[in-house]
């Protein structure tokens, strides 16, 4: 009852804010008209010589050539191009497997270049064009018609589409900040808390009304973008990802608004959390292109959209969706914890321990709270790990050992912070709470990394055990006042397991 009523009034509130609606519509229109403009810019950029913009090394580009023509000799003269002469069927197979960067099918008067949105495909295309140009300059009577159906345009379109599709989400999810932080600042929340509506209903209604609003806008957005040149092979999949991301951003905004002491601070904190989300999900999209990895595809909603716009029939990214829901649920739990603290009613910022107390009030069990803290640790780990790896890479260099250490230390460190908040008092309690933190963490990680959801339990059982054991050691160490030592031990143990896995994977055993 309370939830429905408050959600309805929340929606009415959003739709009565004319200035906000106007800015949403204007923002969407600007984005829509940007699509053809950017496509045109991409087309013009494509005409320039890309080769000068990139470091060139010997035979870095592989082109499968089908057919014979004198201009092939020009192509062979290019020091960075390696030519493979095959039949058309083999050429296409090699291209699909990523073993060549492009296929050049040629006959007497015309040729066709086929590339993919894979690294260096654009260079292969440029090299072919270069060879055609040189050949035509030598004998300008001869006309040669080159058709290119893939390359830079698709590459940039793949990067452009996710940004255009996902950036409006950050505007759509602003009402939740207004609703939570404004009510707190004006203390309207005091009279709401004095009404029979439960706090969980109050917060859930704010999230839900914003989510419904985003779903409506998302549907309109999906209907409009095809008219401006963006087409998806599975529009429903893109819509589902769009809404999942909207949920994530709304939950993050609800969290920062519940913690911030006023609306201005909440807006500032929201821009920071949005930057983290963009960095996390969008930078991985770029990984798909330079270079493509399996994990990038799993981690990135942007990659999913890029694949959709390229016409690839990618299935639903269930792993990613589950992880988004875990992070969203964690953010909601933390927001509710902040909402339940007394600091909230007094417009003060709750500390970590108060958030934990709020969580305890909601869950009413230390074990449940420990399990929840595992999810919290995992949710924070993703951006922290990314920053840790990035810093290690830029400051120390691409040393595999140090990269591995930074990632492991980030994971074990955040689980240790969770245990520090839980404050186990004796050995057994420490071990149990640690195991629960590790279990939740391992489960979340497994949902993200397992290649097939159904195989998650089989494939990821060992990492889940490693996470549980390591955290159990830290929990016991905390209770026995050997906290720092136990954290180091856990990091070493975790690293040892990771190194063993790498050695095994590389066949060096």
């Amino acid at each position, binding site marked *: *009852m*309370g939830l429905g*009523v*408050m959600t*309805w*009034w929340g929606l009415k*509130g959003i739709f*009565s*804010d004319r200035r906000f609606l106007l800015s949403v519509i204007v923002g969407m229109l600007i984005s829509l008209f940007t699509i053809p403009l950017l496509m045109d810019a991409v087309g013009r950029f494509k005409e320039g010589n890309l080769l000068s913009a990139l470091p060139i090394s010997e035979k870095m580009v592989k082109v499968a050539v089908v057919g014979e023509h004198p201009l092939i000799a020009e192509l062979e003269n290019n020091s960075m191009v390696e030519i493979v002469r095959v039949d058309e069927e083999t050429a296409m197979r090699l291209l699909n497997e990523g073993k060549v960067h492009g296929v050049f099918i040629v006959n007497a008067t015309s040729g066709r270049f086929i590339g993919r949105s894979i690294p260096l495909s654009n260079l292969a295309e440029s090299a072919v064009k270069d060879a055609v140009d040189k050949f035509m300059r030598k004998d300008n009577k001869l006309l040669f018609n080159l058709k290119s159906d893939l390359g830079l345009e698709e590459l940039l379109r793949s990067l452009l589409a996710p940004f255009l599709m996902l950036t409006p989400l950050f505007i759509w999810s602003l009402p939740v900040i207004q609703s939570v932080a404004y009510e707190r600042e*004006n*203390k*309207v*929340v*005091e*009279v*709401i*808390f*004095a*009404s*029979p*509506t*439960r706090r969980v209903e109050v917060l859930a209604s704010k999230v839900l009304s914003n989510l419904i609003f985003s779903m409506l806008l998302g549907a309109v957005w999906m209907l409009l973008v095809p008219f401006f040149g963006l087409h998806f092979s599975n529009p429903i999949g893109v819509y589902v990802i769009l809404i999942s991301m909207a949920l994530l951003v709304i939950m993050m905004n609800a969290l920062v608004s519940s913690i911030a002491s006023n609306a201005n601070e909440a807006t500032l904190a929201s821009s920071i959390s949005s930057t983290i989300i963009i960095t996390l999900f969008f930078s991985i999209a770029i990984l798909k292109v330079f270079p493509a990895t399996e994990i990038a595809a799993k981690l990135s909603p942007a990659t999913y959209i890029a694949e959709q716009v390229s016409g690839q029939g990618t299935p639903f990214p269930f792993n990613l969706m589950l992880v988004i829901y875990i992070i969203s649920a964690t953010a909601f739990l933390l927001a509710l914890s902040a909402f339940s603290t*007394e600091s909230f*009613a007094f417009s003060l910022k709750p500390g970590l321990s108060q958030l934990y107390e709020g969580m305890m009030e909601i869950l009413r069990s230390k074990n449940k709270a420990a399990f929840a803290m595992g999810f919290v640790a995992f949710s924070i780990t993703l951006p922290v790990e990314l920053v840790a790896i990035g810093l290690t890479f830029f400051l120390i260099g691409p040393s595999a050992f140090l990269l591995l250490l930074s990632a492991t230390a980030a994971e074990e460190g955040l689980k240790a912070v969770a245990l520090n908040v839980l404050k186990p008092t004796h050995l057994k309690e420490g071990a149990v709470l640690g195991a629960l933190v590790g279990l939740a963490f391992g489960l979340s990680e497994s949902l993200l990394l397992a290649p097939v959801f159904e195989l998650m339990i089989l494939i990821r059982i060992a990492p889940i055990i490693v996470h549980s054991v390591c955290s159990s050691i830290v929990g016991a160490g905390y209770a026995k006042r050997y906290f720092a030592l136990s954290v180091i031990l856990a990091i070493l143990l975790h690293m040892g397991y990771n190194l063993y896995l790498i050695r095994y994977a590389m066949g060096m055993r």
Partner: protein
Amino acid sequence: MTKKFGEFTAVDGVSISVNEGEILGVVGPNGAGKSTLVKMLCTILAPTSGSAEIMGLDIVKDAQKVRAVVGYLPEEPRVYDYMSGEEFLSFFADVYGRGRERIPELLEFVGLEEHAKRKIGEYSKGMKHRISLARALIHDPQVLILDEPTMGLDPASSRDVRERVKSMRRSGKTILVCTHYMDEADFLCDKLAIMNRGKIAAVGKPEELKAKVAKQRYLGVVIKEDALIRKLAEELGGGVDGRMVVVGIRGMNSTIARVHATAKKLKATILSIKTLDPSLDDVFVAVTRGGKWA
């Protein structure tokens, strides 16, 4: 009930009772713990220890039910500026699961029926207070808790709110009023609890409290000649309060005789002589500053 924030004890073992249909005033200086006490009774804050019952319902165990029978008016009007007065009341009617039939009646009660369609952001502070009062009454609560109901209001608006509170008492509601205006407490309350440093320092009817305070009694003397007021006060060893000379009583008859004699000597014309009763202000000062409290 006790409420602690870390090491600081805001409410320290407070125990009071209010009878049905009574108005209890909780008075005390700023920081005495009144608002914290009110927030606990409204279930916004949980007590650190102890509990309270409202209409037989425990404020900790039956918090949801308590909220349904209590109407709370906070110190400052807590309103949505973007809603109209009518929408604001409709929202809370929905939140409390009540129909909207009472809205016209409540708007009339607080005198805002002509402003029902205007945005609350355009209301004056007094109007915001009145719409807040209507909001607190939307679910027809049996118990009303009012925290500084006239704080920051002009005299006319204050009188308006007080009259409305008084009329609600007549309709059988039990009311707890937190205030630091003594005249308001005197006007409204059947019973007073004076809070100081988180504790209840005194409880009783206003008359009982006044009777307890100040063993020393005074005479107030008003004379016709303004120029002689200060001279008369000096001669009598008293003080001046406005146009009144205030003299300590050391035996009623002898003091009155001394006043007449001195006035005659100074050729002053006495207009009135009256004994001065202690006010609630005196009670408040005595209790909160450790004065002549019996």
